[in-house]
Every structure is written in structure tokens, then in C-alpha cells.
């Protein structure tokens, strides 16, 4: 049993090796969830050492701490309100100034800090030496050097952690010009009970902290801001940031030794970027990288998915009998688990590759190259990858939105993805074009893909205008130095994401399969999914609704309900309902015309993404947005199907 327990936050810039260090500290004792009220991932790890229980909380990687971005607000709130016992601040040694700036902010919060100078190997390679003894002398606290990716320096960090109870607070902090300090002294009295009152006072002065509906305080702050501006000839936010950076420079001057000039420092990364982000080569290289990503995730991943599918097929063939119970095991239980696990290969490979791209430094370059195009569509450069993946499968695509920093972008991208025509919709197209459009097969299919893209862009742009009026998220993005990615870290991160999917989205998917099974099997004694079953009756009841769209058979309605589980199921359902695959072509030929086939394909493309997609949308951006997504897609799908059929009929194509 632990004698003492401490909560330790782990903070740092993005690309500082924070994740590696966090993994090193917590190992596999990891709990992944979301921060309350938001959909930003929260990782926690509890570990016992030297009779002390440590709870490590990974706070979002940020460059600053203001209320202006969601990640920063979460980090700031956790540090100032939850007040961890100490904060490990991971600093990229090769990027001392910018990393130390964040460290300075955290020191100003009046917290105990454990600075970790990470990636010292990269820094040494660039001729940068950090003198921890001098840093320790200046701040009165130990500085730990690590190379987290290789596990170096972790034991030294543990030693500091074990003595965290006796750790002192840093003794050296920035001092601001007189008018700023005067304002800070007065404003600090407004937050008297807070240990981070100095940080808060500076925050309201530089506009980093939004003043809650307090007119009097707002007036006071405005007056101080005016005074500072007058006396120091500059805006408070610039002045304060400047002073903080001056503080950093003064520390760097004492403690950072550079043997080469800054120009030489970025030489290797520079040389690689001469090709990778080149004005002319960057685009083609990006397209190649995207093709490779798509190829690996789907072409390589799908056979594994097929094995899982077939494995579950074999498994259910072992279930004997034809009774209700056997059907429950086969079509309910086994199919339900299979429906969840079938996505695992794609998701694992995708997140493995995303981690590799992120770790190596390519992910932000890809966003840089794609941004101009995506920005024109109303999205961020980083939205390209999720959108592209949508063509393969919407589920990993929606999960990939977590690579986007900004919540608005995450929401818009996740809501646009379902219109990207995934591979599960292709069998439906192929079935119909094979029967009705034999001469123009590829043209028809291609136009459906284009229609999907068009709707995706339209939905994203419209929703941006409705919900996020002032929502151009900036592309003020670091292009980190390239380095060799760690396969272990990538596998770890892919594993976490995959488990997250199974645990969080799996139950929803499994549950939906069960519900459909119940609807298709009851009342007792009816053939599975027949006209007498509940689902058949629902199909018959709603079929007239589809009359304006040209397909009003109960079978089509039931197929669409089953398509909710997975769109390729639409084809299989038709097979069952029209008496086997052999008779399928003639049956469909009899029930549909070329025009109603077209409207049915449009419907299939747009109406409701499959249940698994809804499950991950709900997980990534929340229930309300998921419901909105369903609402929009059903309305749009039905509306467009009707438009296609009615316009076609008016033009005499019926």
C-alpha cells in the first residue's frame, strides 16, 4: 500500500517527445478517456514506486496557455484549477527558446515544476549543449536530461519524482516593467485565494484569459491596458510576451551553448525539405505519400479484415440447427462481434502509419502542402487525410479527425466524411450498374464518387457558415525537424486507439446488430427478415415513403434498414429477399428501372452512414453532432433520390 500519493501533470510543446516520456513513465498502466465535456483525449497512468503512488496526467501539448484554443484551455484549467502536486514540463532541447517559454508560463502559475530537457541527442547533433547545473543554480530546482525515445535519463527523473514532496518551487521568474507590475499587484487581489493569481492577473492583462461577465473588472483591466500602452508604447499582449521571451533569452545566454550558427542547425531538415515541401515536387510527393497511406491501410489491411470476416463466417457455420437460438448465436452474437472486429486491421494500420508520419515530421508537411486546396473548401490542411481515408472506410477516417487540433475542424471534417463514398458502397453500385448501365458502368460509378465529394464539401461549408461563423482556424503550425520515427511508440499508439475503438464504439455497433436481429427474427416462427417479421412490416410500412424516389418495394426498404449495419449488407439482403443470388439480377431488373436504380444508388451513397460510423462520430465529436449527421444524411439522401427520380421522369427517362 502506498504511503503517499501525488498527481503529476505532464506538459510540454507538441513534438517535444512528451508522449514518449509519458509512455516511459506509465508503461502499460494506462487509462484513455476524454476530458470532461470535450472530446479531447485524456491519458492517465497510475503507478506505485518507492511506496508512493503517482498518478500521471497527460495534458494536451500546447505552445501557450490561454483560453483562446480548446487544448490550451483544458491544459490551463487543469493546471490552475485541479492544481497537480507537480508538473513535469517536457522541453525539446534543440528548440530551447520556444519550449522554455511554455515552461516560464507554468512557473508563473506558482506550481512545483520538474523540467525535463528531452531529445538531448538531437540537440547535441546540432551543436547545442544545455548546462543543467547552471539552470539548477538559477532556478533552485533540479533539471533532468533525457532521451525519452531510448529510455535514457528516466531513472534520474524517477529519483526527482520520489522526492517530489520536498521539491521547492522555482525561485527565478520574469519581472515586468513598472506599469505592468503595478497592474498585476492590483489585479492579483481580485483572485486572492488562488495560488496562480499572478498568472491569472497577467492573463487578463494580455487577453489570454477571458474575463467572466464582470463589467467592473473588465473596466479596471481596460484602464490598466490603456496605461501600459501609453507608458510603454506598445500593446500589453506584445509587451508581456516580449518580456517573457527576453527572460528566456537571458536564461539561454547563461545556460545554452551553441557551437554552430542557427543557419547550420536546421541544415539536414532543410535539405530534406528542399524536396518534400518544394513548390513543384511537394505536391506530387504528397500525392504519392497519400496513395501509399491509402494502399497500406486498405489494400494491405483489407485481406486481414476478410480473414476476420471469414473466420466469423466459419465460426457461425459450426453453430448447428435452424432454431431461434441458433440464429441468435449466428446472426446476432457472432455477427455482432464480427462487425466490430472487422475494422480492427484498418484502424490499427492507419493509426500506426499516422503515428509514424507524425513522429517523423511528415504529417505537418502534408498539411502544409494540402492546405491551400483544403482551405478553399473551408477545411484545414490536416483534414485531407481523414477525407481521403473516407474513400476506403468511413470508420478509420472519422477516427483520424483527432489529428486535427481545432475542435471546429474536427467537427466539420467528421460531418463531411460520411459522404465520401466508402468501399462498402461499391458492391451496391456494381450490382446496379451491372444490370442497368452496362455500357456506362465506370462513368456512372465515377459520377457517384464525384457527387459524394461535392456533397461533403457542401455540407462542410454550410455547417461552417451556420455553426462556426468566425472559424478560420489558423495554419500557424510548426514544421518540426525530421527524425527517425519509433516503431514501438507507433505500435503503442495504434494499440491504444484500436482498443479505444473496440471498447467505446464496439458496444454501440454490437448493440445495433442485436436490435436488427431482434427486429428480423420476431415474432416467433417467421423466416429471418421475411415480410412477416417486424423488420419486414416496418419495410412495408415505410415503402410508400420511397414512392417519389421510384423504389417502393418493401424489399428495398428492408435492404436500406439493413444497410444501416454496413452498406455492403444491402446487396446480401437483396439476395436473401429476392430468393438467392442466382435470381437476383432478374428480380432487381423486374423491381427497378434504370432511373430508380440511379436514385437508389444516390440514396445508398448519402443516407445514413453505417452504424459503426455513427458510433465513431459520436465518440469523436459527441452525440449531438452524430444525431445531426444522421439527420442531414437521411434528409439529403432521400431528397436527392427524389430529385433524381422526378427530374429524370420529367425528362422522359423513366
Amino acid at each position, binding site marked *: 500500500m502506498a504511503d503517499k500519493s501525488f498527481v503529476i501533470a505532464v506538459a510540454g510543446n507538441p513534438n517535444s517527445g512528451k508522449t514518449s516520456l509519458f509512455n516511459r513513465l506509465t508503461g502499460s498502466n494506462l487509462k484513455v478517456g476524454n476530458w470532461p465535456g470535450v472530446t479531447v483525449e485524456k491519458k492517465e497512468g497510475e503507478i506505485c514506486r518507492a511506496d508512493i503512488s503517482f498518478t500521471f496526467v497527460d495534458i494536451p501539448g500546447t*505552445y*501557450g496557455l*490561454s483560453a*483562446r*484554443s480548446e487544448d490550451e484551455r483544458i491544459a490551463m484549467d487543469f493546471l490552475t484549477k485541479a492544481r497537480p502536486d507537480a508538473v513535469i514540463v517536457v522541453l525539446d532541447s534543440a*528548440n530551447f*527558446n*520556444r519550449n522554455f*517559454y*511554455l515552461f516560464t508560463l507554468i512557473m508563473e502559475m506558482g506550481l512545483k515544476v520538474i523540467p525535463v530537457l528531452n531529445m538531448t541527442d538531437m540537440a547535441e547533433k546540432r551543436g547545442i549543449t544545455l548546462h543543467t547545473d547552471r539552470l539548477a543554480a538559477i532556478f533552485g530546482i533540479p533539471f533532468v536530461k533525457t532521451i525519452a525515445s531510448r529510455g535514457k535519463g528516466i531513472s534520474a527523473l524517477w529519483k526527482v519524482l520520489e522526492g517530489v514532496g520536498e521539491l521547492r518551487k522555482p525561485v527565478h521568474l520574469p519581472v515586468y516593467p513598472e506599469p505592468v507590475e503595478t497592474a498585476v499587484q492590483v489585479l492579483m487581489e481580485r483572485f486572492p485565494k488562488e495560488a496562480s493569481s499572478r498568472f491569472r492577473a497577467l492573463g487578463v492583462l494580455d*487577453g*489570454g484569459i477571458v474575463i467572466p461577465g464582470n463589467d467592473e473588472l473588465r473596466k479596471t483591466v481596460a484602464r490598466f491596458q490603456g496605461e501600459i500602452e501609453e507608458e*510603454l*508604447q*506598445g500593446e500589453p*499582449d*506584445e509587451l508581456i*510576451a*516580449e518580456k517573457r*521571451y527576453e527572460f528566456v533569452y537571458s536564461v539561454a545566454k547563461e545556460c545554452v551553448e551553441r557551437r554552430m550558427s*542557427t543557419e547550420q*542547425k*536546421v541544415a539536414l*531538415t*532543410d535539405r530534406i*525539405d528542399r524536396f518534400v*515541401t*518544394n*513548390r*513543384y515536387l*511537394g*505536391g506530387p510527393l504528397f500525392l504519392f505519400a497519400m496513395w501509399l497511406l491509402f494502399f497500406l491501410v486498405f489494400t494491405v489491411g483489407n485481406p486481414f479484415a476478410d480473414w476476420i470476416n471469414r473466420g466469423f463466417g466459419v465460426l457461425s457455420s459450426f453453430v448447428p440447427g435452424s432454431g431461434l437460438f441458433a440464429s441468435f448465436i449466428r446472426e446476432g452474437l457472432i455477427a455482432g462481434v464480427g462487425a466490430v472486429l472487422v475494422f480492427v486491421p484498418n484502424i490499427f494500420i492507419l493509426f500506426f502509419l499516422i503515428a509514424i508520419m507524425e513522429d517523423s515530421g511528415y504529417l*505537418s508537411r502534408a498539411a*502544409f*502542402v494540402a*492546405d*491551400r486546396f483544403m*482551405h478553399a473548401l473551408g477545411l484545414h*490542411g490536416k483534414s485531407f487525410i481523414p477525407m481521403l481515408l473516407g474513400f476506403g472506410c468511413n470508420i478509420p477516417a472519422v477516427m483520424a479527425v483527432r489529428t486535427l487540433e481545432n475542435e471546429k475542424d474536427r467537427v466539420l471534417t467528421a460531418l463531411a466524411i460520411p459522404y465520401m463514398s466508402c468501399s462498402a458502397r461499391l458492391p451496391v453500385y456494381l450490382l446496379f450498374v451491372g444490370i442497368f448501365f452496362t455500357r456506362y458502368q465506370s462513368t456512372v460509378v465515377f459520377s457517384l464518387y464525384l457527387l459524394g465529394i461535392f456533397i461533403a464539401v457542401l455540407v462542410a461549408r454550410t455547417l461552417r457558415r451556420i455553426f462556426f461563423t468566425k472559424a*478560420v482556424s*489558423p*495554419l*500557424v*503550425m*510548426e*514544421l*518540426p*525537424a525530421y527524425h527517425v520515427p519509433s516503431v514501438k511508440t507507433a505500435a503503442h499508439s495504434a494499440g491504444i486507439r484500436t482498443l479505444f475503438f473496440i471498447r467505446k464504439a464496439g458496444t454501440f455497433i454490437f448493440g445495433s446488430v442485436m436490435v436488427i436481429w431482434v427486429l428480423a427474427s420476431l415474432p416467433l416462427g417467421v423466416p429471418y427478415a421475411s415480410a412477416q417479421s417486424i423488420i419486414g412490416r416496418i419495410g412495408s410500412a415505410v415503402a410508400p415513403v420511397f414512392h417519389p424516389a421510384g423504389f417502393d418495394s418493401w424489399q428495398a426498404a428492408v435492404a436500406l434498414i439493413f444497410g444501416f449495419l454496413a452498406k455492403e449488407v444491402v446487396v446480401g439482403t437483396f439476395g436473401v429477399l429476392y430468393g438467392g443470388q442466382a435470381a437476383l439480377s432478374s428480380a432487381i431488373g423486374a423491381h427497378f428501372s434504370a432511373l430508380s436504380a440511379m436514385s437508389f444508388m444516390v440514396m445508398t451513397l448519402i443516407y445514413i452512414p453505417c452504424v459503426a460510423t455513427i458510433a465513431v462520430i459520436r465518440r469523436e465529436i459527441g452525440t449531438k453532432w452524430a444525431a445531426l449527421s444522421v439527420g442531414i444524411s437521411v434528409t439529403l439522401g432521400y431528397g436527392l433520390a427524389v430529385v433524381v427520380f422526378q427530374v429524370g421522369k420529367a425528362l422522359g427517362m423513366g
Partner: protein
Amino acid sequence: MLTHTAEDYLERIYMLSLRLERVKSSDIAKEFGIRTPSVISALKLLKEKGFVHYRKHGAVTLSEKGMERALDVYDRHKTTYRFLRFVLGVPDGIASADACGMEHSVSPETADAMKDFFSFIRLKKDAGVDIQGEFQKFRKEKPTVGKRARYSDTDSGTRRLSVVKDGIRCVILKLDGDREVKRRLLDMGVIPGETVEIRNRGPLGFPIEILIQGYVLTLRRDEAESVIVREA
């Protein structure tokens, strides 16, 4: 302790005595623009404290103690006035009015320093160094205040980062535009006084890659537009 008004009285009586043979209470009242009875009651008080000799309807004269005090105040008035008028170059009316306020509160040490500085400037001017003139020139142009560069749209050589050519080193003068973007730029080290250089461009000219604080940062055209720089 004398109040300011008392010091004012002594000073005023002294100054009136320079041009009038007999200073009467009505003269003082005229000077201050107040009623004679008010002056009389003030004079009674000063008499009690031994600063003035005064008899009803007679002339007002300063005692030895009063004279000493009056000369002292008058001297401080002259010093501050001269400092404001001839060292700082403040217009005459303002210098005179300010001096009337400052003469009471300024300490002997500060007054001494002002006097010395005034002599120092005279000395320098005789030696051919016109500090006062230089200072006036500086105030007129006001190019920089301390280390901070002041931005104005009319300055030649200042431009927005969005129109700067690749590979040219620039000094950041100021940021404007969207507050969210500005906050982010400041946090990432894009601060006035830093040097910046465009390293590369995206396929269609934007976004750009800039070199700042020894690392690479990307900016869209809008964001680059909010950074005001001068070529170094």
C-alpha cells in the same frame, strides 16, 4: 507647516513688493482674483505665524522669516520654470502654470539637480554640443522609444510579411489582425524585435514557411499579413 496657499501668499507678496511701493491687501486680492476679506483673514493667520507685518488698512510687509521663505519658494519656482521651459522645451504658458504647482512639492535635492542640469547643458552648448537642440530634434521625429521600434504605416521600409520575398531577413515590428492568431503567434515566438525569414512556399505561393527562433513555422497569407516587418 505652511500650506501651499500660504507659500503662495508669501511669494506673491514678495513679487508685488518688487513693483509696488506699498503692498495692500486689495492688491493681493486682485492678483489672486479673490475677495479682500478672504485675503485679510489669510494675512491674519500669516501674522500669527510671524511671516508678515500687517496692520488694518496699512501696508503688508514680509518679516525676516517670511522674506526668507518667499525667496526660497520663488527660487524653486524659477528653477522648475527654467527646467521645463528651456531644458524640456515645454511651451511658456504650460511651463509657468506647472512651475506654480511644482514649486511647492519639489525637494531641495531635486531642485539642485535641475539647476545643475541646466548649467550642464549651458556648459555643453558653449563647448559646441547642443543637447537641448538634439533633444528637440529627437522629440520631433520620435523614431524609437527605448528598444521598441514604433510602427507607422507611412514609414518607408515597413511592410507586411505577406509581400516580402523569400530569403530576406526582416525584423518584426508589430502584429495586428485577429486576436486568436496574434496570441498564437506571440506564444510561438513571433514577437516584435525578432528576425524572421521566408524559407519556402507552398505549391500555390501560400502558405509560407518562415524561420523564427531557430525553427520553421507555417503561415497562410492572412496570417503573414498580420505580421509587420522591416527589412533588416
